[in-house]
């Protein structure tokens, strides 16, 4: 058989590696800033661009899509070529993919700083960027499949199954969750509302973790771990079972982010049981990784990249065991809305994604630059300081979360809540400080790595291509009779993709279709009315400032919550909420029924200087809301968009919306004046007050009626 000579493109790998390092540092720095803002509110700098509500989405987006995203592409472009014995399908597509992805990141950073956001966690980017992401993702898939189809290796290795599943599932998640109606170039409303929006969003959010942070990284693990350890993969059969079980079961588990909320009980229960069933498939990956090291543990001792990989895989095991635990309703009742969740995700992000990326970089860069690592010692220091950082980050937050939750739930024997919300915030301070220290250590480690790698790169000489040779695939293939049945699909990439898509689509379809079609899932409440134009403008400000990053709008049916916040939230209350704003973290109190609790002037003073109304508050100040004018011109378009989404405003309401808005604004300005605050009715603060004063009131009115 004739051997064909060909080359692997290392240049694109190098570019993605550089981007990974750069965005990793940026993302971690943003995270550190956000962490410090919780301790020192002055670090919000009284500027719209640097408040926590905008920094936090920048941190999460930068880490997930910029750091881990580029890390995925770095690893995929390196391993894919070698596993398929083929150069990337098209250098042009590789370049478009690289620069397109960096453009998305830069646009994301700019728009998030400016407050252009959809208000859906991990999917904050506005519709033009959503479209760009879709296009670039297709370019990635095209390039990958082009390479697969030109391969010289008959069967696809398990890493590539994971890459393919990642590609189709992320495409599906991104498109379904991003369906929105544009109002203007940088503003859109989610097509879904309330409970449905929550179900779709957490189906997306949970599986962004699954198919962006987990499956591609499992693929990378399956390549780089056996490579670095020079050992055969422990069990082929385990790979098969854990791959299919993982992608099938993961999709269903989304509703475990919505336990005890207004989502239907059956959806919550599905979320619980599929999370429980997820333990074994997740651990399958960890076991296969760790047992691959059988007989090579002595090498782990003196090989720094193996150390990183081992801790990464172990952190993966811990996080995926904790995840199902947190999905049990009685555990979730304690952990949800607290820093426990933050600790949990950081074990995954810092341990699994971070350390795996570092391990790969330490392995890859010296190979690309044909030289030994500049300093093994420094890399070992990075390993220890990073591990220490993770521990110092996570342990205090676990404690903090548990403690805060217990305080929220504490009652005196007389039946009063024992702690004001502010008490529980003040108690968090030492833990927030410790967490910042842990994060700083981790970042210092990353800086040390950057220095180490730059020194290595400077000393080495880059090898643009690697040469290899292999015979071309013949069109005729006779399968061995002894072959494992699964070998069939490993020869058929297109079928593998289609079957993966079917497998991952099932869970979503079964959970969504009833939630959308069956009326009884979201019982209507007659007294719940659409937002007035002013309230809608206020709501958009609420979304823009990222209030949902610290405040929930979901009162769970617990005594401790109904005593603190009022009647528990009902599904029917959110039918006009495009997007839903339930939130996932209570750094501040729940706002679902804040309406009418305080006077307008309280809100005015509070937004200007939170600690004046709530001593010891760590909320940032929002002075610009007192100065900036409401974007009155957009009112008509917003009402029109809402009508298109099915919000029942009367016919022709868009034409009188502006007048309606001005009237309501004047009323609020008048009420403020009574308390000695003189302000013009066209300020943003007026709209925000209107929205806050409306929250949760519809159902209060009904209750009053019921009493009479």
């Amino acid at each position, binding site marked *: 058989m004739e051997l064909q000579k060909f080359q692997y493109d290392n240049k694109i790998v190098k570019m993605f590696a550089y981007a990974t390092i750069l965005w990793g540092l940026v993302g971690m720095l943003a995270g550190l800033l956000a962490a410090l803002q919780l301790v020192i509110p002055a670090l919000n700098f009284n500027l719209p661009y640097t408040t926590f509500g905008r920094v936090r989405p920048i941190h999460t987006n930068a880490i997930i899509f910029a750091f881990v995203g580029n890390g995925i592409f770095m690893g995929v472009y390196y*391993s894919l070529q070698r596993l398929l014995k083929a150069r990337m399908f098209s250098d042009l597509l590789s370049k478009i993919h690289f620069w397109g992805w960096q453009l998305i990141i830069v646009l994301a950073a700019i728009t998030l700083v400016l407050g252009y956001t959809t208000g859906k966690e991990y999917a904050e980017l506005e519709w033009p960027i959503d479209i760009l992401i879709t296009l670039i993702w297709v370019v990635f898939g095209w390039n990958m499949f082009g390479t697969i189809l030109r391969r010289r290796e008959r069967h696809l290795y398990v890493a590539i199954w994971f890459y393919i599943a990642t590609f189709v599932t992320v495409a599906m998640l991104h498109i379904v969750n991003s369906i929105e109606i544009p109002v203007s170039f940088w503003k859109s409303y989610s097509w879904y509302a309330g409970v449905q929006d929550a179900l779709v969003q957490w189906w997306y959010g949970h599986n962004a973790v699954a198919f962006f942070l987990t499956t591609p990284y499992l693929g990378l693990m399956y390549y780089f771990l056996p490579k670095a350890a020079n050992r055969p993969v422990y069990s082929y059969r385990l790979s098969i079972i854990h791959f299919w079980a993982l992608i099938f079961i993961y999709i269903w588990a989304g509703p475990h982010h919505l336990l005890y909320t207004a989502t239907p009980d059956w959806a919550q229960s599905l979320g619980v049981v599929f999370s429980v069933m997820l333990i*074994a498939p997740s*651990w399958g990956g960890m076991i296969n990784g760790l047992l691959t090291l059988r007989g090579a543990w002595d090498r782990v001792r003196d090989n720094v990249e193996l150390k990183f990989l081992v801790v990464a895989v172990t952190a993966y095991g811990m996080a995926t065991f904790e995840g199902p635990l947190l999905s049990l309703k009685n555990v979730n009742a304690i952990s949800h809305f607290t820093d426990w969740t933050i600790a949990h995700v950081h074990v995954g992000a810092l341990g699994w994604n971070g350390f795996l990326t570092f391990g790969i970089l330490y392995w890859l860069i010296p190979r690309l630059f044909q030289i030994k690592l500049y300093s093994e010692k420094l890399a070992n220091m990075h390993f220890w300081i990073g591990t220490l950082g993770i521990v110092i980050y996570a342990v205090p937050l676990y404690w903090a979360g548990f403690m805060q939750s217990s305080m929220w739930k504490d009652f005196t024997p007389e039946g009063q809540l024992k702690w*004001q919300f502010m008490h529980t915030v003040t108690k968090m301070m030492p833990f927030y400080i410790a967490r910042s220290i842990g994060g700083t250590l981790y970042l210092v480690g990353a800086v040390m790595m950057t220095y180490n790698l730059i020194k290595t790169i400077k000393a080495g000489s880059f090898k643009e291509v690697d040469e290899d040779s292999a015979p071309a695939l013949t069109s005729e293939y006779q399968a061995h009779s002894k072959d494992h049945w699964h070998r069939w699909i490993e020869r058929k990439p297109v079928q593998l993709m289609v079957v993966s898509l079917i497998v991952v689509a099932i869970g979503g379809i079964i959970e969504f279709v009833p939630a959308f079609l069956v009326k009884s899932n979201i019982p209507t409440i007659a007294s719940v009315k659409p937002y007035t134009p002013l309230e809608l403008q206020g709501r958009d400000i609420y979304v823009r400032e990222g209030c949902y990053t610290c405040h929930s709008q979901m009162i*769970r049916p617990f005594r401790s919550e109904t005593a603190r916040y009022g009647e528990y939230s009902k599904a029917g209350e959110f039918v006009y909420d495009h997007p839903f704003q339930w939130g996932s973290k209570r750094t501040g109190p729940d706002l679902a029924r804040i309406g*009418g609790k305080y006077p307008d002037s309280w809100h005015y003073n509070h937004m200007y200087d939170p600690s004046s*109304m709530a001593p010891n508050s760590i909320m940032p100040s929002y002075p610009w809301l007192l100065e900036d004018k409401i974007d009155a011109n957009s009112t008509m378009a917003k009402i029109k968009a809402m009508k298109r989404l099915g919000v029942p405003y009367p016919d022709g309401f868009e034409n009188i919306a502006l007048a309606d808005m001005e009237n309501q604004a004047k009323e609020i300005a008048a009420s403020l004046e009574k308390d000695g605050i003189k302000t013009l009715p066209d300020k943003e603060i007026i709209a925000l007050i209107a929205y806050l004063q409306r929250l949760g009131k519809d159902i209060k009115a009904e209750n009053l009626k019921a009493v009479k």
Partner: protein
Amino acid sequence: MKKLKPLYLFFIAGFFPLQSFCQNATANNSSYFSNPLFNTMLAVILFLAIIILSLSTVIKNVADSDFLNKKIKKDNEGSGNSLKAGATILFILSSLTAFSQNTNSNDSWAIGGLDSFTFYFMLSIILLEALVLGLMFYQFKFLLRNHVAEQKAKEAKETDIFAGLTGAVPVELEESILMDHDYDGIKELDNDLPPWWKYGFYLTIIVAVIYIYNYHFSENGALQIKEYETEMAQAKLEVEEYMKNASNMVDENTVTLINDAAQLEAAKEAYITSCAACHGRAGEGGVGPNLADEYWLHGGSIQEVFKSIKYGWVEKGMKAWKEDLSPMQIAQVTSFIMNLKGTNPPNGKAPQGDLYTEKGITVSDTLKISSDSLSALPMKDTLK
């Protein structure tokens, strides 16, 4: 492997008695499954059962690896014992049903919300499991010691523990299961699935089915709203029970002025945390009305002020504090506020509402009505 199957089946069977157990429990309007202690103990029982199960595999494997010599006897004994132990536990579990019917009539809830019978019963299962585990460990050690004596010391030990836990082929023999796969130099072994992993996976699937059945088909499990109602009813009972014996009770009908300095000091602290943001640190007013003058929107008698704090005037932005402050605290804060009268703090807000004099006469009844609307104006402007 085959020998394990009966044990495994027993294990599944063990769940069904539990099912009916919980049916009985719901007759009392609260499922055992909603009790955290019960869940925890159940989890411990299941967890130990899994360990027993996998350890029996280990023992079997270790014993098996000696199958050519005399240890074969011990092998049978080993897994036989664990089988028996497992079966015993499950039979005991199934007898739970019968017992629970007798105990349910008893309303006394003792330990952590569980009746003492259930608690001690589950505790004894856990202890029994622990005992079995201990015995198995002893047996395992014994087996291993014999084994080690015969073969090369360290190597064999590691390999066999591994082999037992994972069902793996030893590293030295892995050539035999090396597949013909080669991807960029990466090869794959054809090791079996680790048994504990496989059975653990099956177990989670069984748990899932039972969970869904319990909550959505048999409807024994309390879903969130029912759970909430139970929690509220329970809390109400507890508070009522406490109130019966509490001496420091006070309400809007019985409240009197407190002069005790220590209590007023406590009241000041509560005032600063909860009230000062709106009413000013010295009661001068701000977002909320001035508390140091003689004008009141909702009445200035001690009873009326107590009521305003307790129930709030929510539509005007005055929060109801009855969930945050105890009745005694409200009484203290009320007294503190009553004492503010006439202190004339600087920057006092203009008076609002009606003049309240010591005799308790409100100046105008008509104004009282108008002051209830949002557009209440300062008293001075509207007073004829």
